[in-house]
């Protein structure tokens, strides 16, 4: 029996194709490994659907082009890897401040500085706690397979439009470079998207029936700035209530709970299989949205009676670890395994750490 609906695609290419299928028609970017397959794919495919691909002169220019296109109501995206996202962070703050929707992909590589081109998870703080200045948030998706990345792209654009906020896909270089079978069957979740009445699409003093659209993030009067921030915070609260996505794997009645996202979560699943052979019942909590963070689900999985402790695994010095600790609130011991130097923990290392915790 042969299955011909599936395609074997690299994560980067699959994300780019999913974006086009989600109606994205503008891509502005600047090259950096390990995400170059996204702009490469966009350069080839965007013209075929009447879209625009443009390689900007820098990351700063690219994100400001995104800002402009988003202000005009377009479905627009950019992609980069860690150092490039740092350069884009000022622009992302402006996009958030101007209440605009856009989609940003970060294929994380090692840091700080130019770091390495290998996979890393060192940008968790940057993605979930800020990056740019000011009290803003992005919805941040952390896929752990090529198929999941594809499925989340449509959702990312819809969520961006629903709440008028920047949405990020936070993946590691492995997700970007790996090939897996994918199907492009997922349609939108049936969200009723608001009309973009705020978009600057052209205005005529005589003919226009609506007010002139102004795309702006500058509020000199502090009362007005307070109003913007109140509006944003109310929206973030609604997102926290409605948009959390999390996978609970084998958690019920587990002795230990692993916490991980992205590629590392898959390695944890291998470790869980190894542990089962040794008679140790281990579960996994995998945040799919790392913001909004699944605080309640993490708490409930780890606080259950059977659990002796939690182990957070990351390719970082321990960033998501802090959100896990906040969720657990001291009710159970929380341990950490990970290295910040682009070194991916193996399933055997994770298993050994679990055994060590049991002693």
């Amino acid at each position, binding site marked *: *029996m*042969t*299955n011909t609906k599936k395609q074997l695609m690299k994560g980067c290419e699959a994300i780019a194709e999913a974006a086009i299928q989600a109606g994205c028609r503008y891509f502005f970017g600047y090259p950096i490994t390990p995400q170059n397959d996204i702009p490469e794919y966009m350069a080839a495919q965007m013209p075929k659907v009447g879209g625009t691909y443009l390689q900007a002169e820098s990351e700063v220019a690219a994100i400001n082009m995104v800002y402009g296109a988003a202000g005009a109501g377009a479905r627009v995206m950019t992609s980069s890897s860690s150092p490039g996202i740092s350069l884009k962070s000022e622009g992302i703050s402006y996009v958030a401040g101007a209440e605009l929707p856009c989609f940003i992909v970060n294929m994380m590589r090692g840091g700080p500085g130019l770091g390495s081109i290998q996979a890393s998870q060192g940008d968790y703080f940057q993605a979930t706690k800020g990056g740019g200045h000011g009290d803003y948030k992005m919805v941040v998706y952390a896929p752990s397979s090529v198929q999941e990345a594809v499925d989340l792209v449509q959702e990312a654009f819809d969520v961006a439009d629903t709440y008028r906020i920047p949405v990020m896909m936070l993946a590691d270089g492995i997700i970007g470079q790996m*090939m*897996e*079978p994918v199907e492009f069957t997922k349609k939108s979740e049936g969200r009723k998207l608001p009309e973009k009445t705020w978009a600057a699409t052209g205005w005529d003093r005589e003919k226009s029936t609506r007010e002139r659209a102004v795309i702006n993030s500058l509020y000199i009067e502090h009362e007005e700035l307070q109003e913007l921030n109140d509006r944003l915070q109310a929206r973030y609260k609604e997102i926290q209530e409605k948009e959390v996505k999390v996978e609970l794997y084998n958690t019920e009645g587990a002795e230990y709970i692993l916490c991980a996202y992205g590629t590392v979560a898959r390695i944890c*699943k291998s470790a869980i299989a190894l542990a089962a052979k040794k008679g140790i019942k281990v579960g996994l909590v995998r945040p799919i949205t790392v913001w909004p963070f699944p605080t309640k689900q993490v708490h409930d999985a780890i606080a259950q009676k059977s659990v002796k402790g939690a182990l957070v695994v990351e390719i970082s010095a321990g960033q998501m670890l802090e959100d896990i600790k906040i969720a657990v609130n001291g009710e159970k011991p929380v341990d950490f395994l990970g290295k910040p130097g682009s070194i991916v923990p193996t*399933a*055997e290392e994770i298993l050994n750490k679990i055994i060590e915790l049991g002693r």
Partner: protein
Amino acid sequence: MLEQNIFAGFGGQGVLLMGQLLAYAGMLEDKEVSWLPSYGPEMRGGTANCSVVVSDEPVASPIVTQATNVVAMNRPSLEKFESALLPGGNLFINSSIIDIKPKRTDINVYYVPCNDIADGLGNPKVINMVMLGAFVEVTKCVDVENIVAALSHKLGAKKADLIPLNREALKKGAEAARATK
């Protein structure tokens, strides 16, 4: 079934393609597959390798650290990945250019003179297909016809005339594997 494979050699030997064809063939058989290349500066003329997982269950880790099968197309690959094999695993050695023997005694070793066979077929480029023929013959990971289907997809209609040569390479590789055991 869970086959965790490492294909390794130097850039230009078609090591990454070998892995891709296996992954694609597995997908055609509705198996769960993943293909992960080593990427980085070392790929320019240096060593190249990829991890390919073929499984009945969803693939957990795509990174292979405990391999059921290792393909070594050159000596540094053998030296690097011999230790990654699980006991009872299969080690495929391109014996045309690898002049050392593995140290392990708890594994199955197959010597396939890929370059010699490819030269005999009149095209040194098919060394990877010779080795893949041996690999599929021993592991039964996928049906060899799906390897051919994967290659047809990869080559496209314009290069379809290369299929008979590659089919022959797969066959010769399988014969070599049978002879070596």
